[in-house]
């Protein structure tokens, strides 16, 4: 269960760390661009997990399905982030700021 000498836990913990950092960014930052970066990190954490588990299965067979999932997900993530950036650009154009706390008209 230790494919290349690096224990599995290392990858898993890294993934969790990435995910946690992403969440921290999502929850606390003000700058909208940083949210996009945080989102990337969240996705990367999940991807890393998949890749790790794809290699971790008995017989050292790398599961092509998981890998293709990751690849597809990266593509999709690109699309998602593009949409997100488009939002950010529109918001910046309309409001002239990247601070998400200024976008608080919708309440109650």
């Amino acid at each position, binding site marked *: 269960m230790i494919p290349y000498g690096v224990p599995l836990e290392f990858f898993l913990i890294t993934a969790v760390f990435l995910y946690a950092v992403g*969440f921290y960014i*999502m*929850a*606390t930052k003000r700058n909208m661009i940083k949210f996009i970066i945080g989102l990337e990190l969240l996705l990367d954490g999940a991807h890393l997990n998949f890749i790790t588990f794809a290699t971790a299965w008995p017989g050292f067979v790398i599961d092509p399905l998981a890998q293709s999932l990751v690849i597809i997900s990266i593509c999709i993530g690109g699309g998602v982030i593009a949409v997100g950036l488009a939002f950010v650009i529109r918001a910046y154009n309309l409001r002239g700021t990247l601070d*998400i*706390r200024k*976008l*608080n*008209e*919708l*309440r*109650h």
Partner: protein
Amino acid sequence: MLPYAPWLCWGLPIIGALLTPVFGKIHQKLRDYAAVIMVLLGAIFAFSMIVDIWYGTAFLGTKWLEETFVWLSIPGGFSLEFGMLIDPLAVFMACIATGVGFIIMLYSLGYMKGDESLTRYWFFMQFFIAGMTLLVMANNLLMTFIGWEIVGLCSYALIGFWYNKKNMIKDDQLGELTEGAYNSHCGMKAFIVTRIGDVGLLISIIFIFFFTAQAGYPTFNYQTLLSIPDFAWLGSMAQVFNGGLLLLVLFLFFLGPIGKSAQFPLQIWLPEAMAGPSTVSALIHAAAMVKAGVYLVARMMPILVTGYIEFLHAASGPTTTIILTVMPNFFLIVAVIGAFTSFMTATMAIAARELKKVLAFSTISQLGYMFLGLGIFALSAHDAGGFIAATFHLSAHAVFKALLFLSAGAILHTVHSKDMLEMGGLRKAMPITYICMLFGALSLSGVPPFVGFWSKELIFAAAWHLATTNFIGWILLAAAAITGALTFFYTLRMIGLVFHSPQSKNVQDLERKHQLHEAPKVMWIPLAILALTTLILGFLYPFIYVYFFGQWGTVYSIDIELPLHLAALPTLYINWLAHTFTSTTYIISPTFLITIGVLLLGGIPGYFFYIRRSWDASRFSNNALHRFLYHRWYYNRALYFVFVRTGIEFSQGMYKYVEDGGIDRFNYAVADGFQDLSRAFRKLQTGVHSWNMILLLIGALVLILLLLFGGTFLAFFLP
């Protein structure tokens, strides 16, 4: 005319009542005369039943004839029958109601002439008489109750008959108000006060029904009550609360008559009932309404006494003991309430200023006599003297009180005032009325040979008989005697103030305007008829006696010692006269002496104060006792304060604080609370992204904590 008479004697007046509006559309005369004739026909049918009683066609050996049809059929073998009972008491009462009623109707032709609401008047008068006749003819408690309420309803409508009078008057309790409002207030007071008694009556009827059902014979029927084996309904009622329920039910039963016949705790409505036309007062006092209570007690008392005697002879046991202790208490209550009321209201009559109020108080007082008689009958159980005295006094009272009221009506018709101080010296202007009223007054006071003497003497005799065996009898006799003295006194006062005293300013004005005149013929003829009746009726006593007690022994288990055949009537007659004036142990009968003594005691001061006017009465007019009596012992005022004012304030307070301030406010508070909660809750939606994420984090944390550790915690919430 048996199969039809019991129905027609009240059916015809009802039909007449329903036709009155129709006739009114056709012609006014037709309406007036049709009403009188319908009541006359009812009276004829009622009197026709006397024949059936007399010749025994209505008697079936051990019980009286009933004409019935099924009214309600209830599964379980019971059907409620609507029926007429033809027995002496019923027919006797029906004759009084329709007979006196007819005379009053006849009188109304003159008295009410030209009133604009005569359709309403005739309608309710006929309905009133019909209701009373239905009440007395009904063969079961429920039907009686129906008639009972019809009578109450008609009294409500008739007392408030002149509801639209605009002149202002002043009342002790109500302050200043229009006479119309006062009249309708009086009608309502009569209805509601009697209604309180009715409630008690209805409760007790329902309980009697319940216990007869327990005994296996669910019934309201009087004769079935009598024939349930071993009086099991009384027995099972006595077993609840150690006889407490029995006493309660009996007392509640008596509460109905108390209300209707205006006895002590509920007597307050009757003086106010004078607000109606005098004919209505006459009908209420003489023929119909107040007699209903006496009738009902007279109807139930023999049944109860029979039950009591059965238990007296039954094997001893806890139930028997209870009944034998409870029932005499109840009988005593009846007698004491009768005696006390008769005394109390006689004192009030002394101070009353309005002519009709004097008569009203005297009515209550005389009704008290009747209850006293019935109570004495029950207390002495084997001696039916009290019963016959009470019923005889009832008929006597019907006649002379009708006479008095109609005479008063004639006077009021002339002088346009109710107040006796605004009358005086009318003797010359209204000689016929004077004589008729004098007859009535002497009869009321019990002066021989008027009918009042015979009947009242019988009550004294019954009390005397009781007194010879029981100490209570002395107290009752004393109360009756004092009341008798008071009666003669206030009667003389009334006659004196109206006819003998010098003319008041009001009368002088009338005389000057030549408006002082004798009553018209259509009014004084009924007066004359009634006046003659007061003379004759007293001598019919033996007939009535036989009539009543002819079959008494076979129906009720009460012994009658006197000969019971028509053939024995002459003997009976002689015995009666002898019995009245003499006695087996004394040369002169003690009750006769008591009567005479009482008359002297009341008559002498009365005569000197008010007829001769040689003694001055005015010096008493402002002392405390007079005020106390004038304000009716302040009883009315106290009741107003306790029930009416406090009641209304209570209900308004309840409405203000409990309903609006409590429950309703609570509802709105809940609604408002949710709105406030909602407004507060909406602040959660800050519109700040980080806050959204934090909420998410909180949700996730709660979720994971619950998932990991929540098993036991959640188990607490599970079913």
